């Protein structure tokens, strides 16, 4: 298919930083600063970055849990960024979200059954009997017993709770699911179960995912294409295998080199980055990575490098935001 399902164009999401007696906005926290990203039907785009890079804010902006400051979010041609809540409602069915900690995102006072039924009620779908049937079916799809229907979230383990979160996200047959760190709270043996479930559901239901996580190995495994985010900007994007094999941005290289590999005494060269991520309230001028980059040049501190295609175009593009070809 040649038309993207979701097309994010120059998206900016800023938060006011308030202070003083009158709580006036003193500054802006530029959480997402000019991001463009497309997702085609049936594909997974992985978004990787460290804490505070704006990856979750980007995900929340897409489902309009936060309102973007500027830019467009085209979902099948409609710009969601400016829609009113009323006009947004039909699109909420199409775009769902899975959160990191299912203990926080599930209401502890509701039974699993009533939580899974809620989306159907909100959107006025079916009668009581058919809704019950759908809930039982959903539980089966995510690998839970039908008896879960009358139980409460605390009666389940972390992995099972994440399955409930997934069931709720797929309830209304969405086209796109934003997965925000869906496995980072889970143990290794449970993490692989949930990743397999997500892969399986994508095939069965032809879902598209925006998969947000800090773990590059996890993201690369589930994604077709990946985008690396740093301080509100995408610094590199492209086919997952290619970005891993031939990383072009110094930050991507450092990130790959920092991942501890479960293979002992490899004696490999590790490029340890010095310093820390600057604050998005007061980002450095020019390239956001310039304060930590081992290859930094004077131009990097003055001009923001655009995300430019270095190989392929459109969906096949490998793009990098660096002034230099490393």
């Amino acid at each position, binding site marked *: 298919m040649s038309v993207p399902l979701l097309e994010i164009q120059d998206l900016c999401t800023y938060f006011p930083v308030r202070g003083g007696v009158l709580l006036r906005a003193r500054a802006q926290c530029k959480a997402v600063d000019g991001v463009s990203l497309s997702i085609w039907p049936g594909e997974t785009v992985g978004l990787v970055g460290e804490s505070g890079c704006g990856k979750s804010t980007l995900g929340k902006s897409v489902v309009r849990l936060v309102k973007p400051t500027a830019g467009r979010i085209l979902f099948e041609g409609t710009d969601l960024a400016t829609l009113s809540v009323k006009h947004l409602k039909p699109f909420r069915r199409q775009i769902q979200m899975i959160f990191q900690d299912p203990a926080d995102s599930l209401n502890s006072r509701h039974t699993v059954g009533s939580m899974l039924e809620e989306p159907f009620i909100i959107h006025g779908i079916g009668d009581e009997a058919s809704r019950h049937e759908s809930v039982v079916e959903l539980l089966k799809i995510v690998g839970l017993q039908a008896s879960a229907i009358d139980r409460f979230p605390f009666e389940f383990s972390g992995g099972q709770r994440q399955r409930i979160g997934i069931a709720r996200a797929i309830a209304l047959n969405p086209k796109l699911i934003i997965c925000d760190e869906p496995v980072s709270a889970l143990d290794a043996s449970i993490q*692989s179960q949930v990743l397999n479930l997500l892969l399986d559901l994508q095939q069965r239901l032809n879902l598209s995912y925006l998969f947000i996580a800090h773990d590059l190995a996890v993201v690369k495994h589930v994604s077709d294409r990946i985008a690396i985010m740093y301080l509100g900007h995408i610094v590199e994007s492209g086919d997952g295998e290619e970005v891993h094999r031939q990383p072009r941005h110094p930050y991507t290289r450092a990130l790959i080199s920092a991942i*501890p590999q479960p293979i002992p005494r490899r004696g490999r060269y590790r490029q*340890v980055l010095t310093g820390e991520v600057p604050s998005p309230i007061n980002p450095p001028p020019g390239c956001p990575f310039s304060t930590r980059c081992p290859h930094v040049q004077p131009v990097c501190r003055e001009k923001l490098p655009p995300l430019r295609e270095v190989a392929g175009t459109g969906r096949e593009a490998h793009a990098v935001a660096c002034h230099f070809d490393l």
Partner: protein
Amino acid sequence: MTSTATSNSPTGGEVLLDVQDLAVEFDTEAGLVRAVDGVSFQIRAGQTLGIVGESGCGKSVTALSILRLLPRPMGHIAAGRILFRGQDLTQVSDDVIHKVRTGQIGMIFQEPMTALNPVHRIGKQLSEAFLLHQDVTPRTALERSVEVLKKVGIPSPEIRVSEYPHQLSGGMRQRVVIAMALACKPALVIADEPTTALDVTIQAQILELMKELQEEMGMSIILITHDLGVIAETCDDVLVMYAGRVAEQGNSEDIFHRPAHPYTRGLLESIPRLEYPRKTKLRTIDGMVPGLLDMPAGCRFNNRCGYRVDRCSVEAPVVEACAGAHGVSCHRWRELPAWKEPVS
């Protein structure tokens, strides 16, 4: 159960810590639970031992019991010996354990914000260790604090000593906690998930720092983590725990290249690796870790194990030596198929 713990590693120095048949129990409202059951291991001077396992496997409880820091009154050491330089820490007086805690064994916790006191300046918290254990004036203590902060790579330490923990980033806070643990040049440092709360590039910095400090100061480290990658890159020896018991132990070559326990193998196979082709099904371990109150009889892994036979649900396996110091707690380790590395 202790037979395999005797190592004849040519690289290690004297045995610094020798834990024998440790059992820890918690008195809960639902009854008495055994969180750690028959765990034995040794650590030699200058070596790093990794304890790995999923949440609830008893790795942190094992670490806390070494310093007798178990939550009281619920938790207590029910059996076993913890020999530190030949002295049984389970038997010594509170005064002695207090001295050990602050002078000879340092502890690094996962979340540096909870390990630091938010209302005291960094310098004051660090000086405390020097004032308690070395006969120095407050001014000298502060000077030593600046020195030790410099050593852990904190820029402009003379300014940082007068700041509060909230003014530092997560990585810097963890460096302060490491500085505190190292202040009195301990022989052993216990690090409980020291990098789990940190980003991967900061984690690399901290692990590198710990490695450098170990080379310089020669202390032993017990590193507790759920991350097999961190274990592989930093540890000489590894203890794999499952549901309060030892599943497998050995040097890191044994554990990563010749894993003999079905659980160790399952863990190694289930982690996504950069080298795997995308979107392929990952191997999984079915089911989940049993709760402490409903442990299966026999081998605690038997309800999730692909090699289960009747004997496994009746008789608990003990740690047997497969080769040298490599020990495995499985009835069927000899019959398992040859291990195939997930990535060549």
